[in-house]
């Protein structure tokens, strides 16, 4: 196996599992260290730089970072990354001095952003420091998009959202709120230099079933209903409620119903519990509030009496795992189940829908009504028009909107300056800085904390169920945050090996608590993986292989479960191993660090 090129930016980026899994590549270990040092404002700004909405995401993120956390592989439970992010947001001081400078003299380029959701807002934030004149068009009276209309206030308080939305609007966005764009052609007549479409996936799916047409008044599309609640058009729901669907919208619908006075709420899901789309913790939150989740029940018929909904008839099925590992559902043989109800909230998915974009503008759409885009540049088939967020590739989480926005902002910048969107894109990079401070001192807390994951305190049950606006999670206080921060393994402090310093004394091999290191004859990767004391079976994680050493052997390190404890460097007599902090540069415009 050939030697590893550690100067490939992706190599050490991959080792920082959380950052690599994050669509926006937030430097997680770095901000957790800042939290440990009680430097909450800096921790917040590091987040703001890459994901734009730390306060919102610290409460609502889908957390792709957490299942990726190395701690899952070493001790099962990941670091509570998302809650630490919120702790930074809750405890921060004045961020004004850290905000990027927005020039008063503009660069003469005018950009239109359609939809004031996270994607458009993040594009605005990236473009404004470069002198762009940014116009934001939104049908609602306030910015925030689905962060405002679909995430209930007991999960995301309005003031948290307002703060982060206003921070961007206050940078000098020309807001056109309350103005629905119903023709792209008309908008293009205003001759903007580029257009960014961030209108989300606004159409909630409906279900064509027997009786559906007769009970219109009792059936509500989940995301529309949540939006009406958010804007105060709906303030109560009476009687028994069935929520259909197994995603996060379903969880928000059922918990909101409970707070609006429903007599009883049940979630009924077509599929099995373990394959539900909702995040694990959102299911737990709903169940903790006493909401039953009934699985393996595909709906059959809406039962009504003269147009008054009586309930829903469900088929009973059993999941069977096929040879391909996927679940299939077979009739269980039980009789159909009738569940009584007065209202049904339909939360079975949402689709892209852009009826206001004329199809003769050179923008191609596929059969799912998604635009044809370049995945890297997010440019549509009309070169001046870019897409991002849910409107680009279908429904995703807020963190994806931030990630798309950074890419689209770079593309718009290059496009407006007549450059090539691919060849002229700034490359990713990596910097390595030794953390060696003295003979046995490192510029990070190398010790391993075996503590288990801290639980987040919750508000008292009664008071939250009676008020839609009482936030359920209280978040970590400074002390809990400090304790949880200690669990981070500092995966961005890399074990860097210099082969010509090594005397092959085996000290690193002997001390490594995880048996990650071996000094062996070079072999093809598949055999090399077996040559370690604990075989490196996780092929998703790389082997770090040195060049030939003096005896012709190579130093091999399995990145899989390394604790980044620094003992290899500590026991190395020649500093052949060093602990170096890797800083991965993810290209983006308007970075406050630039």
């Amino acid at each position, binding site marked *: 196996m050939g030697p590893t090129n550690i100067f490939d930016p992706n190599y050490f980026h991959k080792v920082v599992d959380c950052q690599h899994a994050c669509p926006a590549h937030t430097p997680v270990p770095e901000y957790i260290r800042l939290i440990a040092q009680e430097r909450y404002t800096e921790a917040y700004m590091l987040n703001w730089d890459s994901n734009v909405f730390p306060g919102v995401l610290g409460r609502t993120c889908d957390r792709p970072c957490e299942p990726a956390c190395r701690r899952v592989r070493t001790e099962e439970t990941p670091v509570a990354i998302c809650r630490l992010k919120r702790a930074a947001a809750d405890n921060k001081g004045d961020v004004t001095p850290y905000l990027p400078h927005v020039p008063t003299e503009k660069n003469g380029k005018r950009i239109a952003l359609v939809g004031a959701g996270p994607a458009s807002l993040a594009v605005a934030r990236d473009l404004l420091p470069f002198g762009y004149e940014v116009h934001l068009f939104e049908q609602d009276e306030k910015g925030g998009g689905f962060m405002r209309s679909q995430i209930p206030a007991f999960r995301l308080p309005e003031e948290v959202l307002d703060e982060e939305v206003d921070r961007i609007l206050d940078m000098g966005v020309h807001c056109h709120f309350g103005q629905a764009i119903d023709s792209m052609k008309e908008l293009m007549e205003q001759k903007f230099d580029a257009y960014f479409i961030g209108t989300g996936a606004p159409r909630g799916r409906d279900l064509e079933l027997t009786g559906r047409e007769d009970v219109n008044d009792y059936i509500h599309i989940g995301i529309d209903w949540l939006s009406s609640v958010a804007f105060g058009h709906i303030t109560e729901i009476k009687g028994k409620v069935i929520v259909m669907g197994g995603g996060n919208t379903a969880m928000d619908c059922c918990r909101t119903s409970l707070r609006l006075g429903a007599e009883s709420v049940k979630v009924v899901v077509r599929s099995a519990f373990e394959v539900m789309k909702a995040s694990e913790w959102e299911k737990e939150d709903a169940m903790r509030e006493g909401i039953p989740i009934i699985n393996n029940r595909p709906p059959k018929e809406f039962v009504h009496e003269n147009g008054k909904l009586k309930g829903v008839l469900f088929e009973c099925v059993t999941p069977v795992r096929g040879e391909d590992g996927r679940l299939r559902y077979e009739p269980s043989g039980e009789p159909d189940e009738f569940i009584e109800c007065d209202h049904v909230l339909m939360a079975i998915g949402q689709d892209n829908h852009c009826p206001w974009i004329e199809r003769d503008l050179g923008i191609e759409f596929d059969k799912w009504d998604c635009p044809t885009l370049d995945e890297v540049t997010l440019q549509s088939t009309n070169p001046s028009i870019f897409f991002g967020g849910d409107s680009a590739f279908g429904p995703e989480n807020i963190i994806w909107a931030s990630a798309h926005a950074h890419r689209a902002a770079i593309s718009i910048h290059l496009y407006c300056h007549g450059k090539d969107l691919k060849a002229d894109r700034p490359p990713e990079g990596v910097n390595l800085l030794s953390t060696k401070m003295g003979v046995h001192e490192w510029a990070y807390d190398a*010790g391993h904390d*075996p503590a288990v994951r801290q639980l987040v305190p919750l508000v008292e049950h009664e008071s939250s169920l009676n008020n839609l606006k009482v936030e359920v999670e209280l978040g970590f206080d400074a002390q809990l945050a400090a304790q949880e921060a200690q669990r981070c393994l500092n995966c961005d402090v890399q074990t860097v090996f210099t082969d010509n310093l090594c005397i092959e004394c085996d000290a690193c091999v002997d*001390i490594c608590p995880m048996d*990650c290191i071996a000094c062996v004859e070079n072999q093809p990767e598949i055999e090399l993986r077996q040559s370690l004391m604990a*075989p490196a079976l996780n092929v998703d994680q790389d082997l770090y292989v040195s060049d030939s050493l*003096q005896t012709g052997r190579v130093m091999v390190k399995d990145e899989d479960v390394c604790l980044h*404890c620094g*003992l290899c460097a500590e*026991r190395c007599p020649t500093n052949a191993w060093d602990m170096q902090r890797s800083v991965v540069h993810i290209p983006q415009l308007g970075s406050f660090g630039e």
Partner: protein
Amino acid sequence: MTFVSKPRVHHPNLPTNELGLTRRDYEGSVSTLCAGCGHDSVSAAIVQACAELSLPPHRFAKVSGIGCSSKTPSYFLNRSHGFNSVHGRMPSVATGANLANRDLMCVGVSGDGDSASIGLGQFAHVVRRRTNMLYLVDNNGTYGLTKGQFSATNDKGSTSKKGVPNLYEPIDLVSMALQLGASFVARSFSGDKAQLVPLIKAALKHKGMAFIDVISPCVAFNNHGGSTKSFEFVREHSSSVVDADLIFGQPEITADYAEGTQENIAMPDGSTLQLYKIDANYDPHDRIGAMTYVQKMQEQGQVATGLLYVDPEALECHDIMETTARPLNELTEETLCPGSEVLESINQSYR
């Protein structure tokens, strides 16, 4: 010296042995020796050997004298019995421990200062008594703990860190052990665990005095260009005569070795000691031949390593003295003090 404590957590795929223990369960506390010290590799080799043999860690008696080497029993088998004794007196303590409780596996770790200088007499006598133990010397040719003076095993002409040559003839502990009657004699190198670990396993299973001289470079004082005990010198000038491997169950046929160069020796516990002769003319059962060979190699500036001599049939101290088969602490008052009638009959036998 390391201040960071070693995390308790271990690799989820780390193999467990027959006792359900991992290699980590055979470790001791974190070493306070210099970073890169060869002795730490020897400790790690002992850990690996004991783990692979599935030996119960609490059934060991580990003993040592004074010196860097003699600190190392703290760094392996922290669940076992241990005695860090007086300088050069490890053999006496080991002999006492082994006579009192023959069921404990006895491991003595000593250094070139501890065994070849102040404890040379003790070394000689424990070897000639053939005490059933593993006697392991971490041999670095220098007094590391007192800042790098030549020790008695330092080769003539080998220099200090500052370039001053050693003027005296070296003591070769391997030759002495062969001459004094050790029934298992080997030499190895801390930087070659592939050779060292099987040798330690074989020595632990050997009945009688098993002596291993491990060249273990001192990174602080004796790992420089003029040294004959540096990583580089040993790697360039050593050659193995006989590789050993201890296996359980049916001995495997290894095609890599020419006919007649592989030999299987049945060990008392049913395992098999396999010998692979790298040098086909070398006979590991010929004591005098071994002595000659080692001396010849030394004269040529070479280091002979591997299993140099083994006599699986040799008697050990308990056999020679015809002691009781049970550890002394298991003997009841009745056995130890059988009464005046028995005493009377013994006295009668002398009349």
